């Protein structure tokens, strides 16, 4: 049997500011299986963004191990992590994080190019994804020429570019109005279904979380509840 896509063993994370120590995560045990749609919830400062950063290997835990696809990533050097991210993880950020000097299409192509792929099939896929998010016409526009919703849709296309098994999203609709938010969420869910990825999403929006198959709630750096849909009753 395949290992779980993500496994967290006794994760802690603290930041030493010199004057005092802040414990952000205080011992997280967690396993996420393939195909799950997990929403991580919690108030501001509960540690949910830090947790997401650790899952992606963007930061390393103070103690504990993180296994991605059965491989310990918490102690890998930065460049190996980057390669794993490029291959296995797609990102969607609250503030889009498109590269301002690249056009929409180039932004979508970037993960493939960074991995050294640039066949015509890549270009086709990028255009297909832009078409899926409804921006085929605007592929030559720069991020500043796009609205927030449009930028986030480009970011979605970019996240799926390399068919990652794991998709991490940090408040993907946090900066959008409700109409645009719903549109982005709809696209995120349908793309996720079509691509068959595991989706981990950080949010404090209950409506967004209600679409998830599993809701994990953090408080003061600890998991206080972990509910799977159907268990609730």
């Amino acid at each position, binding site marked *: 049997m395949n290992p779980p896509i993500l496994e967290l063993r006794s994760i802690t994370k603290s*930041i*030493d*500011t*010199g004057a005092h120590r802040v414990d952000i995560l205080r011992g997280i045990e967690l396993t996420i299986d393939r195909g799950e749609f997990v929403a991580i919830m919690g108030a501001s400062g509960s540690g949910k*963004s*830090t947790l*997401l*950063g650790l899952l*992606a290997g*963007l*930061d390393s835990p103070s103690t504990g191990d993180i296994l991605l696809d059965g491989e310990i990533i918490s102690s890998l050097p*930065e*460049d190996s992590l*980057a*390669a*794993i*991210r*490029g*291959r296995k993880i797609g*990102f969607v*950020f609250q503030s889009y*994080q*498109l*590269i*301002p*000097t*690249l*056009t929409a299409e*180039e932004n979508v192509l*970037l*993960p493939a*190019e*960074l*991995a*050294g*792929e*640039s066949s015509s099939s890549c270009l086709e896929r990028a255009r297909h994804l832009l078409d899926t998010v409804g921006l085929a016409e605007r592929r030559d526009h*720069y991020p*500043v020429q796009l609205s927030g919703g449009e930028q986030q849709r480009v970011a979605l296309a*970019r996240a799926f570019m*390399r068919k990652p098994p794991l998709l991490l999203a*940090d408040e993907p609709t946090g900066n959008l109005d409700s109409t645009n938010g719903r549109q982005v969420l709809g696209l995120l869910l349908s793309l996720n279904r079509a691509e068959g990825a595991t989706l981990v999403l950080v949010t404090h929006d209950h409506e967004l979380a209600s679409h998830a198959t599993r809701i994990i709630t953090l408080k003061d750096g600890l998991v206080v509840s972990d509910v799977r849909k159907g268990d609730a009753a």
Partner: protein
Amino acid sequence: MNLWTTALKIASREARASALKFLFVAFGVAAGVGALTGVRGFSSAFRDTLRREARTLMAADIAVRQFNPPTAEQDAAAKRYTDQGAVVTHIIETVSMMDSAASSAPPILVSIKAVDPQQYPFYGKFELDPPARLRDVLNAESIVVSDDLAIRMDLSQGSTVRLGGQEFRVAGIVRAEPDRMTGSLNIGPRVMITRDGLDRTGLMQFGSRASHRLLFKSPEPRFNLEAMKTDLRKTFTDARVATAREAHPAIERALDRSTTFLSLVSLIALIVGALGVATSVHAHLQQRLDTIAIMKCLGARSSQIIGIYTIQTGLLAVAGGLAGVGVGAAVQLLFPVLLMKYFRFEAAMHWSPAFAIEGIATGLLVTLLFTLPPLLSIRRVKPALIFRREMAEVRPPLSERLRRQLPSLVSGALILLGLGAIAGWLADSARMGWMFIGGLAVSLVILSGVAWALLRALRWTVQKGPWRLPVPVRQGIANLYRPGNHAGAVLVSLGIGVMFTLSIYLIQKSLLAEVAGAAPPNAPNVFMINITPREHDGLKTLLDAQPVTSADPKAKPRLIPLISARLMTINGQPLQLGGLRRWERRFSQARQVSYLPEKPDDIQIREGQWWDPSSKEPFVALEEEAAVILKVKPGDTLRYSVTGREFDARLTAVYRIISAGPGGAGETLFNPAALESFPRQYFGLARMPAGSVQKFQRDAYAKFPTVTVVNAADVISIIQEVVDQVSLLVRFVAGFAIAAGVIILMATVAGTRFRRMREAAVLKTLGARRRQLLGIFSVEFLVLGLVAGLMGGLLATAFSRLLMTRLLDAEFRVEWLPNAVTVLLVGALSLLAGWLASARVLPQKPLQVLRDE
């Protein structure tokens, strides 16, 4: 697809998207490379022109002078060079009595110069009256005579004279003899003759005392004369072998120093340009931090990102370099046209591709060197930056902080070494390279220290001070120490830029004072010899009645006493002359010396001190070459013999003659107490308008027939022209480099504007009016400019002093006025640059800017 093509692709996409910002970075490179290639090309072309001018004073590229005819071995050595295309001509100089065939006047001692009129002179114009070419009129039967001799013996074209019992026809009067000043003046008026003519006189048959000169003309302009000189010295063991540059030590020094100075200026242009590059590239990469973090999230390895930005900056450097080479070429082509009426050009300026390649390569290397620290810091950019921008500043322990700074320190050291290597290479001197590294490193440390202390002091003033400062002042100062601000970096680069730019000014100012001293406008152009005390007063009266060229008391004619003295012992020991060349053994013979109470203007004390004019003790001062040959230093006691009477004089000073023509100072000077009681002759010096010299010669002859008056107006004017052109060149190149420096400094300040855009937008949304923003920025720029000006000025004074005394071997005078002006000027420029840069920032709509982020 490999790493480099991906990197190239992404790099070029980025460049396309923000062409304007990239232009700005490239501008820094272009200014630096432009200054470098412009200065290098310009000065190289001028150096050639000036060298050509200088060699006319010797009429050759190399002259070998000895008291024996060349031996077979020496002729063979000369032939080795003629085989390579060099031309050589043999000149013999001797003295003899000459009388006029027509009159019964007593014979006159003349200095005879036998030349080959087909060859002589290689350079410069030999002018005759009536106008004719030397080769057409000078033959075995004829001579040409100097104007002073013509007057004394009442000669004109067609007169007949007798030399060594043979009759010669006077074919013309010499109006200009380019190498007149290379021989000795003290012998007598000049007669020019052919070798055949000299043979006819029979004067050379009895081992008569004569000096032989071999003049060489190099086969091609770029021939290595120094190597040739060294080689010739091996065969001509007793001779004085000199290149044209050495014909006049003062001119040589002027040329040498200006050459060193020009290399120095190119270097400084390069460093200041590099600063422009460094600050622009650094600002550029700072803005890319987010992009870098995103790319890391998307799977980019550090090496990939470093590759992307290395390629990008490399492309920028090449683009800027090409533009800079264009600017440099334009400078070289344009300025000669503008300056044509001040400079005399023999040949058109040539544009050398070598300088272009050198410029681009240097620009690329410097850019990459300076990009190294920011590029290395890419490795430390944490992708988590995207999530936790607000993450508190974590202050790790010192060892950890040092470890993190290691790449910066290593790359800093690399930059210094790289710049030093380029400096040494450009200046062709490892010593200069090390001085640059040293100067730069010390300045960096001092400036960083001052920036650190200043920012803390300002912070204290604003936060803890007992006063309430106006809002713009408080905000402006707060901007300087806010986290993430580059005030420290800008201060350091501004300070370094000011230091180097001001150094150019200070050095050129001190240098010009010395160069101008080599041929002051009032330098004497008429010389009188064989003046007895009986004639002294009368001649003085006649001289004082002559028209003057200037009311300057220094331009007044002077009569300097001459006494024949012979050095006997040094500190009681007889002279040790073994191992000296014959040329150097002259000090063991009786030499013409002089005395005077006060230090004359045309010498510079190198060691010891001038004597107290009122002292009754005998003192002596020696020229520096003489002091080296005799191995003496101030404090030594020298025993001289004058007319059989011996006396001891204490050596108080060793001096250098800074004027190019014969001035009052010979190789040995005494105080009046030492020599006043001895019989003497006088040597006369005067400055007259060139047109009135001939009349003076006639008048002087009428009253004082035994006094020889030498007209050196032509030669002195050539010397002055060379010196004037050197000064003009130095001034022009320095001006150009300073202008480039100012532009780059302004660009450094303006380079902070992208950071300022966001700041302005945020302040505007909070209700700040434009005037308030301008006030805030102005305080910030003004403080930066004033402090950088002050520190840069102080460092420049120290650096210039180091370079002047150690490298240029010259005096340096500290001047405070330029420093004060610099502080104010840099403050004002910084303010101006800040305003210019903010002019585009201020009117922008806040939302536009915030959305761009």
